[in-house]
């Protein structure tokens, strides 16, 4: 943690000295002056950083559905204009907002990157499937672009303190597994997934197969029985509809009660939205708080 802080501080000092900052991103990089005030954010996961820097975006690609934004973030937002779907934000609307910074997703918005650059300086960063450590790096990059790095540095230091505190109380020898249940079946979050990174940060061991390179691994009951974690943290997208159907079936399976997590009564329900979709600083702290509560 310390090297990252030190490095960041150093950068702030260098950047603070120059007027126009040069920022490297996943695209062509951008040059920016002063503190942008009118920011347009095209993916949920970048909202964290902008809000924590004390700014409220003028436009958000929120799929026209503000309910998807993490409640803790939503209540800190001022009025903003929805610019449409994350997969196809409306260029006309973005241009009409006359932003001075746009934060876009590498995967989704590559097709309009030149057009966005024409409208305003554009920061292009990966979002979906990124690891926990990348989230923290991106936070600082966004801080640089906003010219409010010191603020985010401080918040990050606080985050590290919070996580360290959780780490002390959570440490244990048992294996954990976060899995998401949907209509298509069970998806286990592999070593590269955001939630797994947070759990490692908290000193916990995950029961995902080591050979798997992917962030998300689709498993059948048989594979799941083989992974056999001590704790199962289940995010069920269909909880509101009575639970994923296949999972109800699993629970009636004759081998179900032989699973460690079931045997030890260590199956816990968590929100798939904050564990899987809200990939940010607040999301990570939410995960830690959930674990604190659930693993008692």
């Amino acid at each position, binding site marked *: 943690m310390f090297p990252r802080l030190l490095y960041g501080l150093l950068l702030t000092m260098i950047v603070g000295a120059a007027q126009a900052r040069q920022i490297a991103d996943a695209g062509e990089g951008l040059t920016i002056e002063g503190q942008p005030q009118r920011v347009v954010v095209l993916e949920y996961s970048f909202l964290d950083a902008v809000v924590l820097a004390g700014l409220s975006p003028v436009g958000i690609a929120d799929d026209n559905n503000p309910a998807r934004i993490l409640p803790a973030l939503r209540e800190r937002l001022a009025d903003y204009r929805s610019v449409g779907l994350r997969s196809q934000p409306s260029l006309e609307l973005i241009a009409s907002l006359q932003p001075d910074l746009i934060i876009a997703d590498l995967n989704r918005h590559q097709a309009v990157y030149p057009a966005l650059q024409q409208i305003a300086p554009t920061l292009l960063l990966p979002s979906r499937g990124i690891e926990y450590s990348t989230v923290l790096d991106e936070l600082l990059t966004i801080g640089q672009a906003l010219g409010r790095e010191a603020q985010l540095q401080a918040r990050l230091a606080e985050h590290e303190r919070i996580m360290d505190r959780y780490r002390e109380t959570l440490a244990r020898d048992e294996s954990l597994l976060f899995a998401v249940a949907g209509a298509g079946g069970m998806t286990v979050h592999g070593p590269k997934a955001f939630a797994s990174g947070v759990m490692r940060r908290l000193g916990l061991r995950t029961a995902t197969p080591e050979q798997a390179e992917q962030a998300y691994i689709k498993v059948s009951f048989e594979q799941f029985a083989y992974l056999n974690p001590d704790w199962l943290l289940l995010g069920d997208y269909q909880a509101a509809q009575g639970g994923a159907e296949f999972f109800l*079936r699993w629970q009636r*399976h004759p081998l179900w009660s032989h699973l460690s997590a079931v045997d030890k009564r260590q199956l816990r329900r968590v929100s798939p939205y904050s564990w899987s979709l809200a990939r940010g600083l607040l999301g990570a702290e939410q995960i830690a708080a959930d674990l604190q509560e659930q693993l008692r």
Partner: protein
Amino acid sequence: MKLASAIKAGQPGQFGWFGSTGLAVLLLVVGIPAALLGGSSFQLGLAELNEALFGDARSLAAQLILTVRLPRVLVAALVGAALAVAGALMQGMTRNPLASPGLFGINAGAACLLVLVQSGLLTGLTGLAGLSELPLLLVTGSGAALAGALVLLLGGGWCRPIHPVRLVLAGVAVSALLTALTRTLLIVDEQAQQVLDWLAGSVAETGWQQWHQLWPGVLLGLLAALLLAQPLNLLALGDEASAGLGQSPQRLRLQVALVVILLAASAVAVAGPVAFVGLLVPHLCRGLAGGDHRRLLPLAALFGAALMVWADLISRLLVFPSETPVGIVTALIGAPGFLWLTCRGRGGLV
């Protein structure tokens, strides 16, 4: 080589019905144990298989075989048989070698209703809260059946002269419409992408419950198909000739359409839209045993079952330990097979 020459010659008798049936049975006899034991992180061997099937099945491995593997393999086989027979019927009825059960909009209908229900949109529109708690099978099954009925209606299933072409075009249009709706939801709602695996066709989540829900419908459909075999043979002579022999081509087409919908809807309800089986297997069987539907239909059922059993095994091995949807595997292995068939010779294809 013998197989190749039989296909090349395109003669119904060369490889023969008995020979081809033998081949299909052989594929099944080897394939089923392989699928029961292969591709597991647990140690599964013949001893465990023996214990599971004939012993007291106490060990974990035997339990797994009996409660996870066996229903999965059986469901896969039955789905394959249903789709292959539905495809053979469809091609016989429309006299179009490109026809497949998917043309009734069955896959698209099942997928569309599933995504609508899962995303909660349908509940929001109709205000019926219980809608999203319906069993998956009921949702997909009724989606498939509704789409099939719609195609039949719009395709002029009630008209005096049924144009097979019109039926097929209506199917294409309805499928495109429903697929577009499904895609809208997938793009608008990240969460809906959970069903992407289902959309590719998968038997990974099937157990004994699905088996019990599946077999009555499919059995009924298969028996009905056999009854329609001889009339379909007459239809192949042309509408006039068939009418001259005292059967109504209209009524026959309607009956066949209903059986296709029953078979394909049952299959898609359980396994999702498994690709290519309904197209490939009838072609293969026509090449092996000729166009007589009385022989073609049972053979198609056997080969369809064998293809699915093997595809299921491969689907587990492809990106082990992760599951790959079986529909992707049937297309990946089915398409080159189909290419080989078409490139080698006539094979009764055209």
